[in-house]
């Protein structure tokens, strides 16, 4: 195995931890000075992939960029992993979900205001992964926070046609 350069290591670590694929531009943006060229990045990715020839994973190019994924052939073992993520929903999960459903589109800040605690980013990530919520835009306030709303999949799951079918609470309660 040839020597791994610093540039390669930074690219490797970024692809490893990013939740979404990274474009060449995304990768270049990690650097402040000494920005590598797109060709340099492409070459590094190629070299990294060569160095992974005996490993279980590789860097794959998909529509929105590059990502690290496990090579074909490991499904048999890894399919068992998913199951143990599916425990029960926490109170925090449910409350965050209903706020998004009833008050959409909302920002994390709105959710925090209503619940009085900071939003656990993992919860939002899980909901996005379930495809129950999505980012529908950005609010034009400082920081341009993301606006979250529920999806059709969310409605499907609960056999609802529309958000209007959500349970309603009497005002006098």
């Amino acid at each position, binding site marked *: 195995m040839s020597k791994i350069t610093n540039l390669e290591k930074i690219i490797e670590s970024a692809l490893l931890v990013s939740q979404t694929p990274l474009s060449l531009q995304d990768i270049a943006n990690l650097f402040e000075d000494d920005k590598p060229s797109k060709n340099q990045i492409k070459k590094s990715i190629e070299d990294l992939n060569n160095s992974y020839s005996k490993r279980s994973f590789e860097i794959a190019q998909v529509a929105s960029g590059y990502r690290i994924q496990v090579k074909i052939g490991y499904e048999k073992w890894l399919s068992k992993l998913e199951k143990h993520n599916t425990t029960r929903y926490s109170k925090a999960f449910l409350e965050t979900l209903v706020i998004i459903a009833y008050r959409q589109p909302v920002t994390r800040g709105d959710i925090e205001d209503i619940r009085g605690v900071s939003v656990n980013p993992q919860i939002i990530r899980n909901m996005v992964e379930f495809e129950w919520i999505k980012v529908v835009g950005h609010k034009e306030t400082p920081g341009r926070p993301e606006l979250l709303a529920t999806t059709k999949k969310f409605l499907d799951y609960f056999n609802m046609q529309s958000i209007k079918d959500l349970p*309603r609470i009497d005002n006098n309660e």
Partner: protein
Amino acid sequence: MREEINFNVKVNGVEISEIPEDLFIPPDALRVIIEEFEGPLDLLLYLIKKQNIDIVDIQILPITNQYIEYINLMKQMQFDLASDYLVMAATLAEIKSKMLIPSDNEDEDEEDPRADLIRRLMEYQKYKDLSQKIDEVPRINRDTFIAAGILNNIEKKTVLPKLDIQQLENAFIDVLRRAEINATHNINVEVLSVRERMTQILDLVRCNENIKFTDCFNITEGKMGVVVTFLAILELVKESIIDILQNDTFSNIYLKVKDE
């Protein structure tokens, strides 16, 4: 500012406080200083530090006087003074009086009236130091990052835990109870359909760079539907999410996502 106040009290060191020695500092500056303290113990540690002495050698008279002067200043400036500060003032005054009045009791075992306070100060100092140490421990998403590899191109099948609408309703009732925001109580059919329509219009506006105002409406929905759409657009504009554009009078009105 925080770091300046935070130096280690135990050391008979030579660090010099940036905070003015006399108490007659501008009220705004005092406000900033006081807000930096985590409570009476923190303030006391600071005062002791300023005297450059070890906690165990605490001189109760000057410390008490200084502390009470601070408290009086805070009162004069009508700070929202936590009762904890007043309790500490009373404790200090009590210790002071015990120290001043010679004890009738000749018993040598009698505890130094300061002992309890010193114990508390040392205990607090310990956790204060630890809290700074734990802040330096390598932690996730600041010093190290966790792998988020994915399982090749095959669509990952996510098994969802079971959830029914009743649980959602219960969660919602909890939220309402917690928030006690009156506005949230008024969620009824109308409001909900407006919120949902806001999401739909946002989708529309994001997928089409400039969408005609009139294209947002679906006439087949009837009068009620048109009103809901109109309210949703107004709400989106009010919340600074979209812009409404019209180049000339009577020309087409367009909706677009608000620019950065």
